[in-house]
């Protein structure tokens, strides 16, 4: 179901308007090649021709990162309450309800536990198709709870982000989720458990400026847009064109902001390597035995 829904979208937009028809073929938005949709899905939503990384539905992301059948969902027990009774051209309450029904989840996030190459992990995956992956009270609380439970259960934590930023329909409460998710991470740090942040296209605004950039290791998918202020806002500020590749993963790697840019197919094994290495605490026994063996 989720994959089918994804097919209705051709390119990343606000995430609240996906009515384009389903077809068997699509034209790659990067290289213009005609791609058979099934091939794209089989290839992890990466264009087989040009390696363009499309956005990935949450279920596919969980499948990519976790060992088969190991996922146990934690999220879904809370929902938003429209604390501001926010209305613009449409009521937030209605919009939320529509999104919940369409995407079959309570909000723009899924959290849970699983095994990654046999290693116990917890993770949060944002759903960009659900109101643009925006972070309101529920997204913030789900992340905070998942991080804390990961700490309690001695699991490494992986955050997969895809978000338009804070959810403005919950006003300052959304803003506060930046601080909430940040302080929740203290629990993980106190237990010396690794936090790997995976930034995917697009990760912007309050999400980028909070937990997403606090990973012990920060990885991005190729050519993902990752920023605080979006390109349009900056263009309005500086009144000139932005340089090619600005605010994209490769640019940020060069600017020192990322540990690496990794292709989707390599993520799982790399994450396993990081987690294993970071768990290599100083052992009580010394290495003398091996030393003797080496000499």
């Amino acid at each position, binding site marked *: 179901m989720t994959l089918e829904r994804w097919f209705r979208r051709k390119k990343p937009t606000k995430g609240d308007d996906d009515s384009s028809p389903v077809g068997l073929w699509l034209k790659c938005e990067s290289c213009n090649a005609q791609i058979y949709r099934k091939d794209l899905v089989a290839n992890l939503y990466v264009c087989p021709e040009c390696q363009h990384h499309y956005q990935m539905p949450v279920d596919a992301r969980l499948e990519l990162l976790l060992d088969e059948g190991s996922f146990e969902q934690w999220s879904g027990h809370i929902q938003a309450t429209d604390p501001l009774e926010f209305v613009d051209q449409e009521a937030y309450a209605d919009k939320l309800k529509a999104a919940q029904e369409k995407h079959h989840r309570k909000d723009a996030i899924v959290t849970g536990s699983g095994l990654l190459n046999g290693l116990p992990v917890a993770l949060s995956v944002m759903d960009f198709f659900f109101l643009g992956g925006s972070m309101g009270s529920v997204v913030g*609380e789900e992340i905070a709870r998942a991080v804390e439970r990961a700490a309690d259960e001695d699991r490494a934590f992986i955050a997969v982000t895809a978000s338009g930023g*804070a959810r403005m329909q919950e006003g300052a409460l959304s803003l506060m989720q*930046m*601080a909430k998710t940040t302080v929740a991470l203290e629990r993980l740090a106190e237990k010396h458990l690794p936090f790997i942040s995976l930034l995917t296209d697009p990760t912007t605004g309050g999400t980028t400026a*909070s937990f997403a950039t*606090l990973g012990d290791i920060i990885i991005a998918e190729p050519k993902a847009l990752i920023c605080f202020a979006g390109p349009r806002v900056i263009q309005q500020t500086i009144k000139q064109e932005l340089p090619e590749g600005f605010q994209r993963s490769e640019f940020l790697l060069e600017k020192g902001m990322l540990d690496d840019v990794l292709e989707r197919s390599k993520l799982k094994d790399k994450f396993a390597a990081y987690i294993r290495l970071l768990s290599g605490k100083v052992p009580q026994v010394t290495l003398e035995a091996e030393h003797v063996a080496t000499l």
Partner: protein
Amino acid sequence: MSLPFEKPIDDLEAKITDMRSYAEEQGIDLSEEIGLLERRLEQLKRDTFANITRWQRVQVARIAGRPTGLDYVANVFTDFEELHGDRTLGDDPALVTGLARLGEQTVIVMAQQKGRDTKENILRNFGMMHPSGYRKAMRMFDLADKFRLPIIAMVDTPGAYPGLSAEEQGQAWVISECIQRMSRLKVPAISLVIGEGGSGGALAIAVANRVLILENAIYSVISPESCAAIRWRDSSEAPQAAEALKLTAYDLLDLNVVDRVIDEPLGGAHKEVDATMAIVKSVLLQELGDLLKLDEVSLLEQRRARFRALGRFEEVLEAA
């Protein structure tokens, strides 16, 4: 320096002034009439400010002549010594930092500074901080911890600077780091929103034990103009957006986003600056006095718990 809705007040004030000079010139006693008008003026102010819309509040928060960060630094504190630079990227004039005394206690004070005229606006980048400003704030947090000095932060910014250089230097990274660093302070921290608390750029120096706000200040996830541009596709709908965003002091108190609203003199802080300073000083002294009773661990835990608890949601029975 006046907003449209303030016009009746200004008119009445002018009338009273007129009548006073007339009475003096003519040597006649109009004190009874003037007294009556003054009582009417006070009632008019009270009624006007009791009923202003959220959008009008936004305008008061931004009005020229409203005290800026440096006004508070100069009048609420003594012995201020400015410290410059982040020792990394530069010295951001949009955030003034330094040592000062609040009463007898040395504190580290930091103030987002918008500017009081066009020249200063440009120098201060309208209070929009670059990454170097947030790094300067973090340097001050380090100094505060080392010398066990409380932090007092004055918030007044449209938001972090959304520009090319800021993005290149990792604006998002430095804001998240600043939020984390401030949450880890071992000393008391008080943030006071004095004008405009704009989004993450404001929050980065507002992860405090106590978050205070002036009656006519605002604190929001997005400016009403930007919100209107996105949600109404028309930035002239800002008044509606302001209404929807619930960004005024008492709105935020209801949401627990702020802990206390400091009432301004009737007519707003810009009408009676000295009185505003006196009120703010007394509140800060009292709040700081309370926090100084807490030890390091309690301060840390209280701050963490405060922000961990924010947000509104409901539990549901069935998972989805």
